[in-house]
């Protein structure tokens, strides 16, 4: 099952949910990369994520690198404490633009 992508204020918002693990991270990767390859700025809403493993995080890394290479914006919103712990361990919390919520990022405009 894929992940929904919503259009909001000039962003493609990829809404991840549930467990983003070995079985579902390819879907997350597909949704993120598809939006980026259309040259859309991307926000990944993680507020409904229960668990994300390394394969899910790797998909975020790949997306972020692609966005940087193509001068696109890429950010994470609503990252849970559990997911943040995994990002911190790999020091990726210092790499990704991370916003407390989707609304917080959208409030500042595109």
């Amino acid at each position, binding site marked *: 099952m894929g992940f929904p992508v919503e259009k909001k204020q000039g962003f493609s918002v990829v809404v991840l949910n549930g467990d983003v*693990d*070995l079985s579902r*991270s*390819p879907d997350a*990767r597909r949704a993120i990369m598809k939006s980026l390859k259309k040259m859309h700025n991307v926000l990944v809403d993680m507020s409904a994520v229960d668990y994300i*493993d*390394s*394969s899910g*995080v*790797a*998909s975020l*890394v*790949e997306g972020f690198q692609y966005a940087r290479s193509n001068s696109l914006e890429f950010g994470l919103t609503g990252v849970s404490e*559990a997911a943040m*712990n*995994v990002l*911190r*361990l*790999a*020091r*990726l919390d210092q790499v990704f633009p991370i916003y407390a919520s989707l609304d917080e990022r959208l409030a500042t405009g595109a």
Partner: protein
Amino acid sequence: MATMGAAIEPTGDPVVDVRNLSATYTGRPVLEDVSLQVRQGEIMVIMGGSGSGKSTLLRCLLGLHRPRAGLVRLFGQDIGGLGTRQWAVLRKKMGVAFQGGALFNSMSVGENVCLPLREHTRLDHTTMRIMSRMKLEMVNLGGFEHLMPAQLSGGMLKRAALARALVMDPGLLFFDEPSAGLDTVVAADLDELILRIRNAMQISLVVVTHELESAFKIADRITVLDQGRILMTGSVAELRTSSIPRVQQLLTRTYEEQPLDTEAYLRRLTDIVD
């Protein structure tokens, strides 16, 4: 700043459940009636001197040695009754960092770490490579993926083995003698790393060691084995205040000659096969 040992509260059903386990090697008993449980997020250290049975216990937990009696449940599954396919599924949830690293010398560090992903998943090549590099970053080996195992120091080998053991995000990690052969500073760094990984990933760890300092730093609970039997299982504080003489001898590293079973001793000396 040092990380505290019990930063999280272990919860839920036991991830490892060992009941009345007995095992022999070439007919000689090496484990007798061993029972222990490890809960989610818990670091259980198995301690004991040489010949105490801790390596055999680890081999039984990994399904590498068939016990004479008792059972081992991992994630609720009795491993004694598993078929090959069921074992393969269960193994994806487990990571093992062996004492000597057990890296393939013909492969680079990066290829070694990536190997479980190639074997067990169909992830995109880029995803696998990023996952491997993330795990190498976690163990402070970022940028060393192109080195060959022979080019690594002892501490780096241990960390590379840990990265490989973690690459599939296991729920349960076995670590055999993490501090063995390392100087005290490198060993302390590795202990700190183990705690950070446990705290971030909420995994359960079974760590086999004979290093007291390391055990006291990382353990939520310690099981002390002696001559194949459990002397006690408890927290570091409980161990320190234990009134069991043999436990105190292990903690203070004092030597006491064990009583000699003369019959068995003579049999060992004279039982020569022509």
